[in-house]
């Protein structure tokens, strides 16, 4: 047999089989499984057939629950059906999973196993999701690496069709789903050899068909349900045998042999580990090494987890075994032990009771690897060592330091057992410089070499702008099983010079390693520019040190900041894998493969960069000792609070793994206002203010996505002690006389997006290009602006009562309590959130749907949600993706309950305390800043009075609940994926609830966080993931749906089109005594736009009628006025003018001009129709004499 290789990640390895073996594929984006759906959608829209010659029908659903429903239905229709998911997505499928298994419908769900959200969400890998479905009746088959993910995708599909029992095929999220590796590929012939035609026919023949009708899904009574449930048993009894048979057939076919459980190790092992998943790679390396050295160790890979192969497991253990450690990658609080442990113990106990074995070895259970925590051979060794103890911990953890419950095992952090013939390289890059892409390409290039295997794994931080990426690349003569990060590398490349001040990039460099640095400094000069810590490490580890001006080469080749190909060629040249000439040729071939589709120019420029790369590569003659006094920066400034110093700072420094259990909160509750301590300095250019021409309009702070440019008006005398560089001018607004004002940039927090400069309306009369703020290189301004910003922060904040919060200018004097988020540079969502905090921040409560906003809002290490000087500010939480409206409603109900309770006590005892005060608290509404301020005073006074009445019934309760008499502003925040799709049912219910909650939809028209998959907010004719051929249906008019209730406040806003309307709508929504829904146009990098001009682009969105602005306020009806106000003018431009500026539309125009033309014409009709309806609605007359019933 000739082996065909491919170099893919676990997701692609799986999808390539799942796609070819199915007819219907229901998909929904969820990390880390999304790529399987994306690939299937792309293949389907390209017309690629499956192994049976038909093109699978791929459909995106509104949620995983929806996908599961489609799977169930399609199976009833007799189609070969699959889906992909992870984590909460799998949980949403549970109800249908019970049904599908109960009905013996064959199917496979491929799961990139991911942590279930508990005290926090985590996108990373463990088995908590798959363990939550082990009672559904689905068989469960675990793949340990990329090759197995490919192979088991087929084995599970084959056995499911044969046995009729559906399968969950799972592998570790990220570690396997995202690891790129060279594997042997399965052909369509292999598929046909594994899946017998009669099984497929049998499945089809069981479908619902009116030609041979049946009833399936009946309701049964106590008389028969139990028996019927037991009737299924023979199918499960037969299953392990069938899996084993299939694995036998597979081995004959491919030479790759698997069993239900596989034992590896010494035939007379005394200590054995049992586990599943990618961790097997680390254990295997250790066991093989130690067995070679004569130790009696072994381990068992469990592959089939349900039905649990108890007999096979017992049989797999050598009879010599004295102690077994079962490792679970999940946690079940309160259980006797984790699931695999319990199964192993039970299997051994039953075997003993049945006389199969004479003695039960000691069994201990441990947790490892939660949320992709590293699991290394050293940790496996710690487990074996524990097994050797006289009294090992019955239940333990490994990989962390548990100084609270003392469950953890110690391990040797220095131990590395990687083979000498495996080359290991680490690349530090910036998200935007293409390092990961180039590293993936290197993995593929190396894999093309015969008898050479390669592996790539990629680590990202949690920021969307200026993120740091670390690529781990291994290659060697055997398939690479190392399922953990490289600990010691022979090659380390740092693609961004600025990292040296913040990150210990040489931490993993081994002695004598090669260090490649991208720098503009010449080899003779670079040394003095390195932090002393880096110099010392180079000397101590005796590194060979090379530099290249990658940015210079890339720029000359016309590639801007994309240094990736330059660095890639240098890596190959230094790696010794091939000659320099060959390296150039191989990289070129790879570029041709990856970028060929994008045109000759891209190829030419990359080729030019490749050709010139080596000219600039030079070795540094390393001096004998460190020089200069540059030091690496501390992760957080010394002024940061204790928790930030101890805990947050460690995470920022990339050393969070070292934090012990005691350092972390027990319930996921963290302090806010921490983003201010994470100074990332990622901008190359920052806005510099010219007070001479500034009109003080406030637009720049309004639109800044990061609160990195701010405005303050302060008493003139506050300027005393200002640094010399501090700029100020007279505040011209009469509302606050006698003040000076300043527009100030936060130079270390600005991302350099340039949106502020684009919206600035003030130009110099002499030089039109010079505005009141201009983007200028950061470096020359840094020291002065740092000093100025520090002074600016200490200037007094304006009293909210003194500003006109109905204006842009007024709101922008208010302190933002949402600052320095890790959102993309130029983000279109965050300005709305920041504005919310300026308007209602000190009494704001946020229920945040999962998505971009929950990531930039709540992904550690820091949060942008902040506090004012009194310590007040937004309280924030994220429940799930699908339940956010309900979650926020629950919050509102709690505040209502407590407020009502407080008021009822006040009614009882208020007269005795202070009748006037009680009356005011009970009767007056506190709406504007003045009233809220008074209300706080009243509450303060009330609590003061309560002190004199301690012991009276209700007093204690009132004291505790009194704060609730200050109105809370509950905002339910989420994106369109939540509002239009997965959370629509809940949103709809909350709209109908009549309760005082506010919902803001940050509408980007795609699932932004997972990479731009289509939602029902995606406009017609736009290309998106899951809509690669252009979305063929129109965007849902969510506003109109909400308006249909009649008593819901609804507004559609776009800050860039009409900021005043935005401010007004948010204020009205908050003021409205019932549910409100604000749909906010949010530009996004997934639109393919020039982000710096995004706010002006929003204007075009409105001018073309693509995004009309309106407000629907039911209260107006009481005044006899039309509740619907159309705030934008009749479209003056064609939709095409808007669309031509967005790649998501323009791409289709190129790729499929005829199709695009038709879709664009329909999209224009959508707009015309919608406008016509809105226009009619706005013209409708309302009779002032017959006011409608008060909506509240």
């Amino acid at each position: 047999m000739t082996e065909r290789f491919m170099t893919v990640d676990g997701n692609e390895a799986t999808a390539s089989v799942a796609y070819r073996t199915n007819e219907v594929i229901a998909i929904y984006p969820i990390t880390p499984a999304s790529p399987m759906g994306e690939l299937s959608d792309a293949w389907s829209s390209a017309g690629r057939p499956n192994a049976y010659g038909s093109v699978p029908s791929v459909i995106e659903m509104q949620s995983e629950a929806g996908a599961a429903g489609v799977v169930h239905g399609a199976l009833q229709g007799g189609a070969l059906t699959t889906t992909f998911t992870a984590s909460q997505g799998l949980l949403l499928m549970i109800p249908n999973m019970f049904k599908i298994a109960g009905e013996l419908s064959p199917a496979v769900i491929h799961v990139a196993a991911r942590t279930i959200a508990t005290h926090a969400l985590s996108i990373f890998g463990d088995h908590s999701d798959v363990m939550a479905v082990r009672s559904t009746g689905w068989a469960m088959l675990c793949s340990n690496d990329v090759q197995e993910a490919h192979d088991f995708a087929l084995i599970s599909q084959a056995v499911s069709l044969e046995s009729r029992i559906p399968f969950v095929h799972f592998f570790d999220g990220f570690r396997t789903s995202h690891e790129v590796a060279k594997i042997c590929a399965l052909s369509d012939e292999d598929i046909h050899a594994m899946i017998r035609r009669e099984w497929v026919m049998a499945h089809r023949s069981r479908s619902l068909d009116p030609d041979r009708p049946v009833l399936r899904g009946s309701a049964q009574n106590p008389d028969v349900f139990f028996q019927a449930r037991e009737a299924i048993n023979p199918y499960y009894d037969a299953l392990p045998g069938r899996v084993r048979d299939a694995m036998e057939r597979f081995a004959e076919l491919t030479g790759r042999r698997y069993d239900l459980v596989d034992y590896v190790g010494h035939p007379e092992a005394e200590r054995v580990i049992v586990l599943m998943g990618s961790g097997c790679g680390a254990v295997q390396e250790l066991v093989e090494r130690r067995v070679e050295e004569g130790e009696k160790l072994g381990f068992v890979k469990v592959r089939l987890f349900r039905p649990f192969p108890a007999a096979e497991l017992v049989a797999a253990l050598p009879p010599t075994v004295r102690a077994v450690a079962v490792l679970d990658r999940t946690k079940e609080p309160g259980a006797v032990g984790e699931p695999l442990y319990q199964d192993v113990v039970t299997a051994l106990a039953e075997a003993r009771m049945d006389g199969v074995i004479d003695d039960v070895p000691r069994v201990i259970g441990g947790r490892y690897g939660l949320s992709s925590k590293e699991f290394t051979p050293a940790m496996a060794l710690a487990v074996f060592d524990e097994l050797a103890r006289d009294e090992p911990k019955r239940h333990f953890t490994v990989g962390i330091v548990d100084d609270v419950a003392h469950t953890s095992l110690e391990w040797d952090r220095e131990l590395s057992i990687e083979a000498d013939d495996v080359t290991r390289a680490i690349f530090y890059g910036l998200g935007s410089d293409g390092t990961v892409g180039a590293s993936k390409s290197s993995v593929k290039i190396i894999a093309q070499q015969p008898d050479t295997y390669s592996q790539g794994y990629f680590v990202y931080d949690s920021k969307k702008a200026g993120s740091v990426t670390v690529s781990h690349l291994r290659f060697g003569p055997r398939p690479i099983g190392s399922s953990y990060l490289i600990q010691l590398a022979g090659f380390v490349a740092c693609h961004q010079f600025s990292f040296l001040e913040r990150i210990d990039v040489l931490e993993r460099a081994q002695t004598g390693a090669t260090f490649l640095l991208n720098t503009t400094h010449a080899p003779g000069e670079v040394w003095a520019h390195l932090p002393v810590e880096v110099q010392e490490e180079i000397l101590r580890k005796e590194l060979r040190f090379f530099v290249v001006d990658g940015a210079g080469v890339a720029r000359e080749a016309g590639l801007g900041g994309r240094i990736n190909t330059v660095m890639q060629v240098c890596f190959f040249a230094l790696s010794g894998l091939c000659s320099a000439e060959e390296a150039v040729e191989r990289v070129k071939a790879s570029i041709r493969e990856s970028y060929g589709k994008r045109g000759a120019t891209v190829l030419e420029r990359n080729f030019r960069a490749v050709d010139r790369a080596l000219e600039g590569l030079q070795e540094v003659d390393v001096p004998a000792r460190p020089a200069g006094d540059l030091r690496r920066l501390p992760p957080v400034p010394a002024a940061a609070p204790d928790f930030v110093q101890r805990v947050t700072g460690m995470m920022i420094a990339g050393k969070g793994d070292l934090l012990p259990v005691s350092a972390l909160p027990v319930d996921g509750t963290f302090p806010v206002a921490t983003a201010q301590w994470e100074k990332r300095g990622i901008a190359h250019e920052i806005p510099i203010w010219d007070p001479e021409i500034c009109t003080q309009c406030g637009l720049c702070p309004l639109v800044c996505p990061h609160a990195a440019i701010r405005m303050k008006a302060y008493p003139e005398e506050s300027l005393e002690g200002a640094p010399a560089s501090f700029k100020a001018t007279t505040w011209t607004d009469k509302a606050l006389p006698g003040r000076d004002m300043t527009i100030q940039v936060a130079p270390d927090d600005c991302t350099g997006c340039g949106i502020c400069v684009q919206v600035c309306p003030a130009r110099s009369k002499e030089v039109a290009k010079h505005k009141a703020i201009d983007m200028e290189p950061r470096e020359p301004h840094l020291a002065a602006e740092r000093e100025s910003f520090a002074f600016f922060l200490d200037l007094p904040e304006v009293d909210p009562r003194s500003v006109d919060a109905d204006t842009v200018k007024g709101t922008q004097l208010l302190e933002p309590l949402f600052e320095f988020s890790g959102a993309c540079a130029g983000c279109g969502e965050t300005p709305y959130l920041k504005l919310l905090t300026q308007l209602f921040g000190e009494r704001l409560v946020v229920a945040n749907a999962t998505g971009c906003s929950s990531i930039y809002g709540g992904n550690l290490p820091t949060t942008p949600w902040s506090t004012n000087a009194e310590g007040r500010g937004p309280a924030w939480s994220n429940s799930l993706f699908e339940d956010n409206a309900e979650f926020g409603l629950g919050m509102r109900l709690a505040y209502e309950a407590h407020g009502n309770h407080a008021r009822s006590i006040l009614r009882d005892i208020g007269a005795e305390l202070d009748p006037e005060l009680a009356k005011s608290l009970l009767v007056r509404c506190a709406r504007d800043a003045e009233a809220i301020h008074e209300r706080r005073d009243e509450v303060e006074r009330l609590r003061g009075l309560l002190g004199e009445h301690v012991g009276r019934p209700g007093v204690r309760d009132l004291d505790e609940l009194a704060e609730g008499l200050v109105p809370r502003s509950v905002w339910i925040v989420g994106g369109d994926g939540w509002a239009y799709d997965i959370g629509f049912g809940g949103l709809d219910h909350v709209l109908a609830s009549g309760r005082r909650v506010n919902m803001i939809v940050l509408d980007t028209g795609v699932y932004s966080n997972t990479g731009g998959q289509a939602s029902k907010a995606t406009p017609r004719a736009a290309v998106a993931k899951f809509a690669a051929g252009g979305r063929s249906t129109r965007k849902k008019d969510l506003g109109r749906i909400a308006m249909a209730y009649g008593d819901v406040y609804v507004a559609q806003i776009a800050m860039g089109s009409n900021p005043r309307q935005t401010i007004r709508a948010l204020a009205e929504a908050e003021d409205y005594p019932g549910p409100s829904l604000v749909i906010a146009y949010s530009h996004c990098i997934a639109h393919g736009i020039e982000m710096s001009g995004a706010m002006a682009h929003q204007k075009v969105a409105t001018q073309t009628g693509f995004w009309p602005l309106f407000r629907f306020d039911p209260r107006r009806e009481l005044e006899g006025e039309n509740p619907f106000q159309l705030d934008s003018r009749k479209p003056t431009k064609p939709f095409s003018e808007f669309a031509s500026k967005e790649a998501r539309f323009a791409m289709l125009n190129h790729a499929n001009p005829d199709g695009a033309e038709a879709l664009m014409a329909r999209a224009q009709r959508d707009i015309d129709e919608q406008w016509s309806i809105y226009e009619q609605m706005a013209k409708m007359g309302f009779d002032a004499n017959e006011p409608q019933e008060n909506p509240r």
Partner: protein
Amino acid sequence: MSSTDLSTTYLGLELVSPLVASSSPLTGKVDSALRLEEAGAGAIVLPSLFQEQIEHEELELARLHDFGAESYSEASGYMPELQAYNTGPGGYLRLVERMRAALEIPVLASLNGISKEGWERHAKLIESAGANAIELNIVHVPTDPSLTAENVENLYTEQVATVTQAVEIPVSVKVGANLSAPVNFATKIRDAGAAGLVLFNRFLEPDIDLETMDVVPRLELSRPSEMRMPLRWIAILSCRSDLSLAATGGAHGAEDALKLILAGADVVMVASAAILHGPSFLSDTLTEMRTWIEEHEFQSVTQMKGSMNHENCPNPAGFERLNYMKALMSYSSPSP
């Protein structure tokens, strides 16, 4: 049907009429091109293939795909990978092929390059796609004070030579009016292998938006009076060069076309008037031309061609003088 022969020869190509539809949106689509042919166009010139635009699109596409890609754990990128993007010259070459298949009249492609390789590569591709000729759309805005007029002209001639050496089909050159020495330039490009000259290119001239204070390039349709500048230079060149001559810019009716032909144009190109009045503008104009030709007892366009050029006209000084001088003179007393 009259016997008047409207046919002409341009770049060695036999054309049924002297009206050529020059680059415009009308020549970018097969259906409107068919209507132009039906209305009597002698040939069509396709919209330009702009090397710069192709490169820009390709780079933008790459940039958009790279933007945000591989930098965040939940998203490998933000744009779906499509099967094909149809960037590059492919779309243009298909247009050439489709036009050639659909039309009887010659199809002239138009090319605007920015590099030697670009001119060469794209010219070859256009030739292999079947174009009957290539019109080079050459333009350079010399902002560098050290660059002389000669430098610029040399650049142009090099570009012409690059293309003429690369292809077999005839090559014409469309230039702007801002040449110091058009006759000398014509000689140079003739030596560089060009077969024709198109006078004059109308560029996208900048404008200032008074509201946004931005520079906004804008293309406006030509006005009839504009044909008088090509009229002069065609008259002058017609008797000094064996290049094929095409007049472009400002021909808005039969009278304009007749004048240009009399001055020596082999063909008169129309775009603005056809956009304004539709393809039937050509048939209307041809009818009027035919009437004039018959009334003035010419036999053919070939016979007319150049009969009023610099050499053949009764008052050649008229082409040499600047018109306003003449106008001025007639209102003042004769100079002493």
